[in-house]
């Protein structure tokens, strides 16, 4: 249980960086589809992480709050990048 908490917390913390990494991995406009798929995967992983973090019974409210804030930022950035890459796909 402690291991899962640590993993979900770390994933939540790095959530804002993941979509940026995805853009660096797929830096070409022509790779909009790959970027969109990457964004969907990131969203799933971050949402799993943040729900997992919130479900952990052990008391660690600070960890939960910080993890949730970071995850929300990550979800927001990922959603924006995902939407833009989806929009791009209609143009290429």
């Amino acid at each position, binding site marked *: 249980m402690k291991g899962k908490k640590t993993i979900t917390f770390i994933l939540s913390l790095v959530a804002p960086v993941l979509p940026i990494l995805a*853009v660096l991995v797929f*830096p*070409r*406009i*022509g*790779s909009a589809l790959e970027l969109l798929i990457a964004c969907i995967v990131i969203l799933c992983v971050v949402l799993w992480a943040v729900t997992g973090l919130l479900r952990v019974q052990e008391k660690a409210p600070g960890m939960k709050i910080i993890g949730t804030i970071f995850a929300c930022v990550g979800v927001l950035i990922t959603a924006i990048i995902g939407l*833009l890459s989806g*929009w*791009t796909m209609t*143009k*290429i």
Partner: protein
Amino acid sequence: MFRNKMLYVLLVLLVFVIPQGVFGVDETKVPTTDEIMQWIDDICAGENRRPGEPGDLQAEDYIYDAFVSFGLSDIGKEPVEITKWRADSWSLVVSGADGDVEIPSFYTLNTGFTPEEGVTGELVYLCGGSAEDFEAADVSGKIAVIDMGFATLPVFPLLLLKSYFLYDPDKTFSWWDSQPATWARTNWNTDYLEEGGDISKSAYDMAIKEGAVGVVWILKDQPTNINSYYAPYDGVMKELPALYLGKYDGQMLKDMMAQETPSATLVLTGTMSPGVMHNIHGVLPGKSDEIILISSHHDAPFKGYIEDGTGMGMVLSLAKYFSQVPESEREKTLVFFASAGHFYGSKGIEAWLEEHSKDYVEDAVLNLNIEHVAARDFQENDEGEYEDSGLMQTRGWFISNNSHYRDAIRNALNANELGRSLVVTITALGKEPPGEARFTNRLGIPIIHYISGPTYLLVDADTRDKVNPDELVPAARTFIEIVEELSLLSEEELAAEAEEE
């Protein structure tokens, strides 16, 4: 059973044979790479093709003769009178604590001449020359030193907001790519010439207003240390003498000015005399009187291989190709037009459109305007020199809002693999498209306007090495296919719809 077989045969005909017959390019009629390159070499033979100058007059005759040899009819060579502005000598000598230093410079087109001895004054650095910069400094009786900025066009926002589609099968564009627009000066906006224009956007006019005796422009956004920037080319004669400096020479001057307050002598002498340039056109009649106007301009600041040797090469390619197609198979009348004076405020095309308002213009259903084809992309390397990036220049297709145009362009691009093509709205960069097609667009003629904007376009680096010969035939084929496909449509089908906001 027999009926089914007939159906299969018909189906095969419909799918394979008929479209080939209708849109297929007859390869035997397409000019070869060597042929097109020879036309371009011949057109670019002169030192420059400035309006009214020998190189351009020679190119006009060459294009005229080519139209005659292709068998075009109603060939016209129509004069347009201009004032030829020629610089004879120019220099910038800076006097500082270490004595006199001459900094390499180039004249600013159509600006005022100085006496033989030049004008002398203290140098005042005004950054970008905004109204605030002028307020903070006294330039009266002095020489204003101003950084000239160029606009940049970010590809990704342009793609999302102003484009129909991008054809880039090799995935060459990154999300953060941008295209420097050396023709779009951020601080010498010539819109002030229009009534009610705001001169605060024109550092040059601010310098006149504040009593400067000259302007020294630093080309801070022009790649390399090149100073031979041939602009603005609005054809308007201006009063205040001005010179350009390359960005590294300009930085040297700024470094000197940071340590002391030097004075300088600016010399720009020359002549103005009456001249004439000519519009050239020729006609290939078709089954219909409806006209597709196929155009480019023939003048250029220097050798002009890309500006617009290749554009004219395409016009000649299409003229030759369609001249070999029997009149009974040409759906529309084709008018081929080589306009004069793009570098004289586009006075050539304006005069021609007015002159032919009752014939060609009235019957025109489409203008295919072609500028800067087969242009290699060159970037500044670590040594400060131009170097081939290995890519082609971004191609802009500014088109009126019509789904048939988009389909025809998409088909032709796919067939000929002309990558790095961004198909955009005519208002993608402002109220009007760039280049000559804005004039036909103003008259309500639907346009397909092909243009690219390499940074060497307006300087003396626009030489033969900038042309990719391997692209000439695919490009010609692309334009031929577009004309063939759209020729089959009626005037109503070719009409442009309003652009979506």
